[in-house]
């Protein structure tokens, strides 16, 4: 229960942050050239000034900026994100449609990066300054420096164009209708390359942190005790070192959640996945500012949610945290 109340307090503390972000971005978007009505008029193929004025009145765009901001925040409380004139639907339903691919992609990439970062980090730390460590650390540096979109393009060239093992893009095969397990497998095969592409840089970060944190924990007294007790090295690592060495990795998930969401904008564009990131890109190109503001709101919510979950995991891994709270 203490865990929940602690994490809950952190969650409550993030509400002012969320409001701050919304106010900031809302005011920022007032500087954008053109508003929703301009975009709508352009879609309709032009119109006279009287219609524009009427539309502005209808959408409340003729009010003063503080009044508009107040209206917007009040609508947000009721979970109404406004109307997207480009998609002809409420922004909330546009975003909801695009959310599943992004969440799937982020979860897959995070699991991939976390698992392999952990394994490689442990291998590197156990052979510190010998060839496995040098090899893994060098690869980590190169992965860190690789632009994700470029890696994605090269992966498409190798695996989709030359080897033809995996599809070059899209979320699922729309040519044939599949159900159940076959549909899941089809989606999975479409997500292999995007997952690798998005996960690569995080793999590099995780393995570096894991290596450093393993090295730190391996030198602690209690590990020496475990060894002196006669435990073999594998048991020392899996039972005693890993749990403590994992703490910085878990912290990092929370810190990197936003970066990962940002990275999915690029990766989803490379692989034409119909996700939130691609929607963000499209709404910038099409000047759909309502949708853009909605995405800002949802992505901030997503980051806050991830951090809430991380707090829970953290408290579970390290009981000392709740004891202090």
């Amino acid at each position, binding site marked *: 229960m203490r865990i929940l109340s602690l994490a809950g307090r952190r969650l409550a503390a993030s509400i002012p942050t969320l409001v701050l*972000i919304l106010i900031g971005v809302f005011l*920022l*978007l007032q500087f954008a050239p053109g508003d929703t009505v301009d975009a709508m008029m352009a879609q309709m193929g032009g119109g006279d000034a009287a219609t524009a004025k009427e539309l502005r009145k209808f959408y409340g765009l003729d009010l003063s900026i503080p009044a508009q901001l107040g209206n917007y925040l009040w609508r947000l409380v009721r979970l109404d994100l406004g109307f997207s004139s480009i998609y002809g639907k409420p922004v909330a339903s546009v975003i909801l449609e695009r959310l599943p691919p992004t969440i799937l992609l982020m979860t897959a990439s995070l699991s991939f990066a976390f698992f392999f970062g952990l394994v490689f980090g442990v291998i590197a730390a156990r052979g510190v300054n010998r060839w496995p460590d040098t090899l893994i650390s060098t690869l980590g540096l*190169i992965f860190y420096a690789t632009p994700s979109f470029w890696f994605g393009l090269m992966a498409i060239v190798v695996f989709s164009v030359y080897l033809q093992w995996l599809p070059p893009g899209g979320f699922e095969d729309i040519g044939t209708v599949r159900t159940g397990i076959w549909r899941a497998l089809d989606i999975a095969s479409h997500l292999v390359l995007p997952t690798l592409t998005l996960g690569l840089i995080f793999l590099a970060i995780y393995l570096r942190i894991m290596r450093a944190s393993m090295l*730190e924990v391996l030198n602690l007294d209690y590990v020496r005790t475990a060894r002196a007790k006669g435990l073999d090295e594998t048991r020392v690592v899996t039972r005693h070192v890993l749990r403590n060495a994992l703490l910085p990795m878990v912290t990092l998930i929370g810190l990197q959640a936003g970066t990962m969401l940002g990275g999915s904008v690029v990766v989803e564009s490379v692989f034409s996945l119909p996700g939130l990131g691609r929607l963000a890109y499209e709404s*910038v190109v099409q000047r759909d*500012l309502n949708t853009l503001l909605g995405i800002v709101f949802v992505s901030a919510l997503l980051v806050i949610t991830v951090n809430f979950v991380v707090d829970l995991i953290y408290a579970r891994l390290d009981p000392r945290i709740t004891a202090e709270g």
Partner: protein
Amino acid sequence: MDAVKRYFRSPAAVAGLILLLIVIAMAISAGWFYPRDPLALAGRPLVWPFSNPRFLLGTDNSGRDIAAQIFYGARISLLIGGVATAIAILIGILVGAFAGYYGGWVDNVLMRITEAFQTLPNFVLLLVLVAVFGSTLTTVTIAVGVVSWPAPARLTRAEFLSLRNREFVQAGRTLGMRNIQLIFGEILPNALPPVIVYASVVMAVAILLESALAFLRLSDPNVASWGNLIGLGRDVLRVQWYVSAIPGIAILVTVLAVSLVGQGLNDALNPRLKGR
């Protein structure tokens, strides 16, 4: 001098420095090797690399010399990376110094703002900024700088928190020094080294951010940038994949060089933490 010696003892740091110097040399010499506009038509489109001695790295979809664009692209990447980093570090130092020195409500307000910037994915914020202010070289550079300052701010704040009550600061206070003098004259020089080392991380990320933006065709289209070229090459990816491949390698090498130099500096300045 010890730090310099320690720096050159690390092969990775030396390799990084050499790579960085090569990229800088490319940026400087671009005008000598390729006096013509790198975005001007140079020959037939889609000439493969090494097939025509006139175009060592081939030409892109519209017949522009790829090698020339790589050389001029080094200028753009280093310029945007450097200036954006300077902006980010400057804002970060100001915010971090005031928050860490004054504490209390100043700290509270500034950290709330920092938190807001960190909660919003920086690439999404970058998209918003570009949507609002357009995508010229200047706005993109400033935008990249503006989304990158929270981490240096937190670092500076942590340094200030640990330094603000040391004896030398208290001595300064008893001498009647003003707060501004204490912050910038006394504490900042001591807080600076880790922040400067961290600048290499900021610069690596800034270069990657700009290239991603250019790849999405949301950066300045009127300059020869590596990201632009990768985005262009995407249209002919299936067969002429080299148009995208070559500038990608340039970005990789540059970012790798910047991070290796940063890590080398870190190890040289904090020898006890080496290998972490």
